[in-house]
């Protein structure tokens, strides 16, 4: 059974659809990429699972199942606790994701202590161990530091350690490298891959970078306009993409085997075709609603 399953998830801002019948599954230990251009709704899926959608966005249909339990049917408190214990987030921008007024140590330990009920010492020992794992020198000193005393790469390592600290079953990584320097990006990606392999955690990796996907992930979901266009294995995608948009996207990305290759835009005709497909889907959805 899959650990996480989305069934026909729909979300809107006012009348505007943000997610259109999104369905996807993540099995225990699976590394799945969620790929799309900006505005494709990939980050919204992560937020919908975590329950941190902006107030303006409403979920209008579908289910979010975690180990078979529908999150939306749960009380807000139970849902929060369940997410807190089983799912973790590696945020996009490490500069704003650590509280500037609090020391780093307590920020990593607090979930273990407050939500999972560990002892303070036990939690600290565990976090120091994890900081070693993410290659942070002198973890004891870092734990007493304030975020502004640390570099962006350091902070992202800390956030990764923090995500793995509670041994969650799923980690959602929301473009975790876009805010970092190119040189640091590679280290952080390698670190996420190593940590995932060591802990066997399922990973939902939100990104627009196909190069990263090919190196890190096993399966992938391609999104456009809040709709799933293709749900496939990474090998399959890179050898024979199913959807025309996927093929165009792949053609548009320089081959990682050929770093000098130039970037090509996705042809407009393809975009129009996908938009037409989505319009047709919306129409079908409306007819369905009216009929009911």
């Amino acid at each position, binding site marked *: 059974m899959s650990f996480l399953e989305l069934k026909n998830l729909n979300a809107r801002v006012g009348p505007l659809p943000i997610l259109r019948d999104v369905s996807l599954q993540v099995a225990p230990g699976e590394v799945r990429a969620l790929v799309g251009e900006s505005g494709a709704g990939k980050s919204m899926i992560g937020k919908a699972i975590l329950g941190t959608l902006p107030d303006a966005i409403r979920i209008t249909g579908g289910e979010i199942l975690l180990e078979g339990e529908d999150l939306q049917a749960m009380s807000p408190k139970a849902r929060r606790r369940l997410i807190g214990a089983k799912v*973790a987030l590696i945020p996009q921008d490490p500069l704003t994701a650590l509280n500037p007024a609090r020391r780093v140590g307590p*920020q990593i330990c607090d979930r273990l202590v407050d939500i999972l009920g560990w002892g303070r010492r036990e939690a600290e020992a565990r976090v120091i161990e994890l900081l070693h794992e993410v290659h942070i020198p002198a973890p004891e000193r870092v734990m007493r530091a304030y975020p502004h005393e640390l570099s962006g790469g350091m902070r992202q390592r800390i956030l990764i350690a923090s995500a793995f600290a509670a041994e969650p079953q799923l980690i959602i990584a929301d473009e975790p490298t876009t805010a970092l320097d190119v040189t640091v990006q590679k280290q952080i990606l390698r670190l996420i891959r190593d940590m995932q392999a060591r802990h066997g955690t399922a990973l939902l990796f939100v990104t627009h970078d196909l190069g990263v996907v090919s190196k890190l992930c096993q399966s992938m979901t391609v999104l456009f306009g809040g709709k799933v266009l293709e749900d496939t294995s990474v090998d399959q995608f890179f050898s024979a993409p199913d959807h025309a948009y996927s093929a165009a996207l792949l053609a548009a990305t320089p081959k990682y085997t050929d770093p000098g290759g130039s970037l090509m835009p996705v042809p407009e005709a393809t975009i129009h075709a996908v938009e037409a497909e989505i319009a047709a889907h919306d129409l079908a959805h409306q007819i369905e609603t009216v009929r009911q």
Partner: protein
Amino acid sequence: MTLIRIILKRLLSMSITLIGVAVIVFFIIRIVPGNPIAMMLPPGAGEEDIARLKALYGFDKTLPEQFLIWVRGILGGDFGTSITSRQPVMSLVLGRLPATLELSIMALVMAVMIGGTLALIGTRQRGGKAEALIDVTNGVSLSVPDFLWGLLFILLFGVLWPVFHISGRVSPALDLPFVTNFYLFESLLRLRFDIWLDLVSHMFMPALALAIPLAAIIAQLLKQSLKETMHLDYATLARTKGYSENHVILREALPNAILPTLTLVGVQFTFLIGGTVIIERLFSYEGLGNMAIDAVINRDLPLIQGIVILFAVIFTTVNLLVDLTYALLNPRLRHG
């Protein structure tokens, strides 16, 4: 390093300001028409009596000379002698200072408690009816000054529903065992809760009148600051860790939201202390402000000078303390 530099810079600026205040108050009150000495004289006093008294208070010297003598006195802790009571200004003023300080601090505590609570409730209920209600209340509280709140309270809780005392600092019938003038504080130390309650029942309304405008400012600023912080990534991250909204507000947002509020509250607190002058008059509360108004009416020049300087010292010290607290609370400055 940074902290010491901040302190030195502020101390320098403080002393320039205090010198300015001293110059202004000294020369303003010497333009006063009418001879302050005249009021002290018994009917039928002769020219030589006048000359003797003038010499006693130094009024026979030129203005610059008088100023220098006065400033030299202040630096040596001598503020001169009150004309009306013929006692040293220093001891008169220090005798009244505790009453005013207790009133101001009580008002500050009330303002922080009321304003802080409203800000937290408003943040928790943001976008809802409770927040709209808080906003309207804030608007009215901000617009109406302490003087009018004081009068309103006198009417409501002194006359219509008399639950509090409307004048004085403490009931005259009470036998006070105190050695200091910090009655409120000392009554607690001595476990004399009967006197403490009497003091509070006298102080409650003037303190609340002073507190309301500041409470509204705190509620407004802190709420705005909290709401901004609640949108930031670390607040979102804390939610995904399983924390409740209340917890995120209190532990993640509040420490960051307090700093921007603090600086403004510092300035506003000096306004609050300035407000004690009229509020003490209104409630016949025996503090510095009440004494100051009497001193002006009686043309007691040395006393006026002393009180104004003391107020200026309090104001600049409050500003200094706020800056220091800001530096201490801000991790960026502390480890800069």
